[in-house]
């Protein structure tokens, strides 16, 4: 059974999603219990898988028993395994968290849980697959479930979901075009095989053409700066319970896929790599500045966080633009760290909304007295976003800056500094509201029991809190794991 772990991790949430409605019909809570169990199971399995990958090296899993260029292959290297653990954790927490939101009709509840599990499935699949077309299918599963989850957030959510759907379909179409061109030139769909063929040389033009489509496709999906138009309103109006997963993880996995294409498949030997790096660098620099500047002007905390995501995605692609193994590790560290920070911030937002029904930061006056844990996470996550040690955000920034210094890209260091300061401006605005502003005397919608919130909200909050500090302090462990894969990749 052990060799089947890679596929089981994807299958567990999938099967739970497929059976969720049926079980909800049998008993109201059964479907949800199944989804929770399945995501927990896939979390456990992903940890086991990570251990296996570290000790025994990359796992190649040929689905159906067909050898790679002919069948579909799942490839789990240490990088994938780590990201899968991250997705499983946030997914599990979000499934717990989502219980507290949405309406209670069985069909809606069951479908919503199913869609959430499918989103997790899609993300897990996108991460672990080693086949170009399979990636497209998972991309579409992710997108479709995201459209639906965003549409569930009221009428404005519907409009943002529709806009996202148009843009997202363009992205998927571009992705298909890109892999179509690659397929036409090489005749294979397997990533490893493709990489071997492309690196024989003579495919520079193919790579250029497909690269331009792939940048557009992944750029749109991960909300990289000039393609980010759909993102703020979609993140703002998404279904509150599932927002942590959508905001925290959904933008990262296309970035991982982008890394796969540009570094693992294309390599760095072809002649256009220079332009790729410059292009990515320009996008990310402007994204970091633009996102932070836009976030400064907002008063809805969801909008602040959404725009800050544009900036934070810029950090990740900045690592790709620098391209040394250290910088790449920095960008993946940021990917993992940011999932917990942004997820955590949205857990906080959701918790505050759950308790007080407000999302406007002007109403946040001194809620720290009533929700110390939530506000503690809010502060730690905000500091991590700014990059104050010893939180996760600082160390990813450190590796990015170190990589930039290694390639003498001083301007990137300057941009990192400026962007952190801009982040500081709006995050301290939030902190100031939470801790300093006068109490607005909001009425408490949930005041049973000893705890400040239900356990299903407290658990995610506490886990994110620990994770942000833990990733920060023990970042070298993660760095070593990442380096198992990244050594030799990049410039």
């Amino acid at each position, binding site marked *: 059974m052990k060799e089947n772990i890679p596929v089981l991790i994807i299958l567990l949430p999938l099967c739970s999603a497929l059976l969720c409605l049926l079980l909800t019909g049998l008993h109201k809570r059964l479907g949800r219990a199944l989804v929770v169990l399945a995501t927990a199971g896939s979390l456990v399995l992903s940890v086991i898988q990570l251990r296996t990958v570290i000790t025994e090296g990359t796992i190649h899993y040929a689905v159906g028993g067909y050898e790679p260029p002919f069948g579909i292959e799942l490839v789990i290297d240490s990088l994938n395994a780590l990201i899968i653990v991250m997705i499983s954790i946030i997914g599990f927490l979000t499934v717990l968290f989502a219980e507290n939101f949405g309406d209670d009709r069985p069909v809606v509840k069951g479908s919503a849980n199913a869609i959430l599990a499918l989103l997790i499935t899609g993300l897990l699949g996108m991460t672990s697959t080693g086949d170009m*077309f399979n990636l*497209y299918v998972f991309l*579409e599963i992710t997108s479709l479930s995201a459209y639906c989850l965003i549409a569930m957030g009221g009428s404005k959510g*519907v*409009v943002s979901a*529709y806009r996202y759907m*148009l843009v997202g*379909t*363009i992205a998927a179409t571009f992705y298909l*075009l890109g892999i179509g061109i690659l397929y036409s030139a090489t005749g294979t769909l397997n990533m490893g095989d493709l990489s071997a063929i492309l690196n024989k040389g003579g495919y520079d033009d193919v790579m250029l053409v497909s690269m331009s489509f792939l940048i557009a496709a992944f750029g749109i999906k991960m909300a990289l700066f000039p393609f980010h138009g759909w993102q703020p309103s979609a993140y703002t109006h998404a279904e509150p319970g599932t927002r942590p997963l959508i905001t925290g993880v959904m933008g990262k996995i296309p970035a991982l896929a982008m890394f796969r294409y540009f570094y693992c498949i294309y390599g760095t030997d072809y002649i256009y790599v220079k332009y790729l790096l410059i292009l990515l660098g320009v996008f990310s620099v402007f994204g970091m500045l633009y996102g932070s500047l836009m976030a400064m002007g907002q008063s809805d905390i969801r909008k602040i966080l959404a725009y800050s995501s544009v900036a934070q995605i810029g950090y990740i692609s900045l690592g790709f633009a620098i391209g040394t193994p250290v910088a790449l590790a920095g960008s993946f560290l940021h990917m993992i760290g940011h999932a917990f920070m942004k997820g955590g911030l949205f857990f906080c937002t959701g918790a505050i909304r759950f308790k007080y029904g407000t999302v406007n930061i002007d109403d946040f006056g001194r809620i720290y007295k009533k929700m110390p844990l939530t506000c503690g996470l809010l502060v730690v996550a905000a500091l991590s976003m700014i990059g104050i040690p010893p939180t996760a955000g600082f160390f990813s920034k450190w590796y990015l800056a170190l990589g930039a210094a290694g390639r003498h890209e001083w301007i990137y260091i300057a941009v990192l500094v400026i962007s952190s300061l801009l982040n500081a401006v709006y995050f301290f605005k939030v902190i100031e509201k939470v801790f300093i502003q006068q109490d607005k005397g909001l009425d408490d919608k949930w005041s049973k029991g000893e705890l400040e919130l239900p356990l299903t909200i407290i658990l995610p909050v506490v886990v994110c809190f620990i994770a942000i500090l833990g990733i920060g302090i023990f970042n070298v462990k993660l760095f070593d794991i990442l380096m198992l894969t990244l050594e030799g990749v990049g410039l």
Partner: protein
Amino acid sequence: MMTTINAFLAAKGIYLLTLILLSLGAAGIIVCNNYMKKLICMNVMQVAVIFFFLCFGQKTGGTIPVALSEVVKASEYINPLPHGLMLTAIVVSLGTTGVGLSLLFRITEKYGTIEEDDLIRRENKTKTGEKE
């Protein structure tokens, strides 16, 4: 000259057609003001890509990929892979269109319009309305 163009069109002309289809779709999504039209243009784009993929399945001298005899020679059948892939792509585009249409349904119910500029105006109206 003409023979060059003829040869080019014979070999690659179909790509030109799919490219035009794709550009029409993309232009439509950007230019159209009506959300329904945008959705149709989106479909046009997807169809263009499906055509594009199917181009690779063509093989001179090949027939449909259903084995007619026990002995199978690769040169006698066209490439089955793009067809298989595009079946998936079609289903996905079907799903996307379905979701898109239901979203449009909701938008129409709520805002009474699917024209983009009208919609933006009404969205802003509700925003100010809520603040009061």
